[in-house]
């Protein structure tokens, strides 16, 4: 019974925009809906002015593998923002990556995802954006090498990698599943971080949501795959994680901590359930369990010793952690990701997990960069990736060395 109710709500939510299309900018319900959708899309994550002076006034430098792109001003300022844009121009920008002046946007603006959002929802977002204080702020230019500095180059990119078009529900799947797909593939643009990229920075086809390095972190696989994905998580675990930043397995930190803080913790339970339902139905890379490295391996022995001295007091001798406080290392997807970047980073530099209204603790992992050398850090990570039922490739000391170096450079 409850499932049906949820599905009904999802359908209503999908249709909500339609009922109000064409109403004026004073429409409270529509603006509220747009504000919610802007939260789902995490517009502020890129478009807020650094330093927080003017919300959505742009200027944030977005580092991409190809260069630095500057987020634009999306306040209703007529000259420097999008106040002068027509609704069609706004929709075209989000669904086709084309600016008002006809120039191409870079896909750092996730229009390959937003193209799946229906027009009503986009216009609701527009209605909301029209209500924020207009800020006169020239966001500044980009810093990209030739030929990428030519926006026209994006036309070729689009031709090769971009498929425009709204999300089409899959017949035979529940309304909840389809709502989840609509959000994951569209506005929430999960794949922007979690889907592996090709050399051109486009999503690799056939590897959707299977894990990807981002900004010195690794966004792990978020499909139902096991152990690399969320196979061990229930839908409720996913909902708890997105809502509070914490569940019995892990804590959101780094870029995902910010996404939880700004976006997912503010989403409705129905949408979070829809996302969870959809993700749990993605087979991803499948259930391939690599063989764990033997405990007798020298690195494993060193790792066990390091673990006992430095880690067990919080994560426990059995790697089980403490719910919503110390992530469980046993069975953890991010611990068993092929790419150990996030793990290395967290061990070397420490991190604070996100605090939310429902889970305010925001516990932090100390930095062990001054305590562990490259070999020791590699050993303890190899150990946690291959103990208590975990299995993942060994971590190489050279990789620790590289990330240590990049962290030192970044913190300067």
């Amino acid at each position, binding site marked *: 019974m409850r499932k049906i109710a949820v599905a009904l709500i999802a359908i209503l939510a999908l249709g909500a925009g339609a009922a109000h299309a064409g109403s004026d900018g004073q429409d409270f319900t529509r603006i509220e809906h747009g504000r919610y959708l802007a939260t789902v899309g995490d517009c502020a994550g890129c478009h807020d002015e650094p330093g927080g002076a003017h919300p959505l006034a742009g200027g944030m430098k977005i580092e991409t593998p190809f260069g630095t792109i500057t987020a634009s001003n999306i306040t209703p300022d007529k000259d420097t923002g999008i106040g002068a844009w027509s609704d069609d121009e706004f929709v075209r920008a989000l669904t086709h990556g084309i600016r008002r002046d006809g120039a191409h946007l870079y896909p750092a603006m996730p229009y390959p995802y937003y193209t799946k959002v229906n027009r009503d929802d986009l216009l609701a977002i527009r209605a909301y954006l029209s209500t924020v204080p207009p800020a006169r702020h020239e966001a500044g230019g980009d810093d990209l090498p030739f030929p990428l500095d030519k926006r026209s180059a994006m036309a070729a990119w689009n031709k090769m990698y971009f498929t425009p078009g709204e999300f089409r529900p899959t017949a035979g799947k529940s309304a909840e599943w389809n709502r989840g797909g609509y959000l994951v593939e569209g506005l929430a643009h999960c794949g922007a971080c979690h889907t592996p990229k090709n050399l051109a920075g486009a999503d690799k086809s056939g590897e959707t949501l299977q894990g990807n390095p981002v900004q010195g972190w690794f966004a792990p696989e978020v499909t139902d795959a096991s152990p690399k994905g969320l196979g061990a998580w229930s839908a409720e675990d996913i909902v708890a994680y997105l809502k509070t930043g914490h569940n019995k397995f892990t804590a959101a930190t780094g870029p995902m901590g910010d996404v939880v803080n700004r976006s997912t913790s503010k989403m409705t339970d129905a949408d979070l359930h829809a996302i969870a339902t959809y993700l749990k139905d993605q087979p991803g890379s499948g259930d391939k369990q690599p063989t764990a490295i033997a405990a007798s391996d020298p690195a494993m022995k060193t790792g066990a*010793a390091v673990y006992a001295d430095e880690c067990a007091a919080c994560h426990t001798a059995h790697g089980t952690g403490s719910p919503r406080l110390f992530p469980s290392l046993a069975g953890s997807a991010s611990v068993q990701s092929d790419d150990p970047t996030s793990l290395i980073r967290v061990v070397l530099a420490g991190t604070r997990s996100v605090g939310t209204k429902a889970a305010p603790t925001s516990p932090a992992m100390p930095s062990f960069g001054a305590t562990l050398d490259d070999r020791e850090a590699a050993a303890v990570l190899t150990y946690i990736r291959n103990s208590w039922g975990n299995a993942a490739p060994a971590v190489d000391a050279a990789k620790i060395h590289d990330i240590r170096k990049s962290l030192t450079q970044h913190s300067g």
Partner: protein
Amino acid sequence: MARPNRRKVLSAMGLALAASPLSARAAVIEGGMPWTPDRTQPPQPVDPKGWRYFTQEEAEAVEALVDRLIPPDPETPGGKDIGCAVFIDRQVAGPYGSAEALYMSGPFHDGTKQQGPQAHDPPALHYRKALAALDKYCRGSFGDKPFAALSDQQKDQIIADLESGKVPLGAKPGSFFKQVLKDTQQGFFADPVYGGNRDMAAWKMIGFPGARYDYTDWVDRHNERYPHPPIGIADHPDWKG
């Protein structure tokens, strides 16, 4: 594609050095628990070579003193080989030696025992003056020999006289004995990262497992000897692999 560098955004949250005209110069904390990675650093392990504060002669005297205060035995090194003199040297060369943290405003008066130490000289200077006086005393009483060149018996006698105040060394009777004894014992038992307690030998001697942080499995194992050797902040023999 890519995202803004959110690590920086997140770490900036909550703790900001405000310096605008209408705000005081101090850390202003709001909006969430601040994240200030590496704010506090682990201690840097002491390099045992050379002396930072003591002259060679002073160092020899201190080594001789600590080796009689805690003499070697077949199982455990004495104060010298375990690094107590190195420990004291590094300590008096730092904020401890200059009494940097203490209330050192005058006037200085001797009070009752209950009122606590009122010494004007911080520990570093105390060592300098007392070691000079000790040298003078030894050379005057033992045929121009410094303390380090005396026999164990002679050294022990002098230490006993320092303890009783019979040899006053200029400062308050007994004060240098107290100072060097306290510092020697600290060097013996403190974490080896500070230069003493080499190889955690003092901890092994008594059965203290050192810097371990998890005895969850041991709280209800009663009257059973804990089997694991000590570890230090920077001493982890079983990490060698």
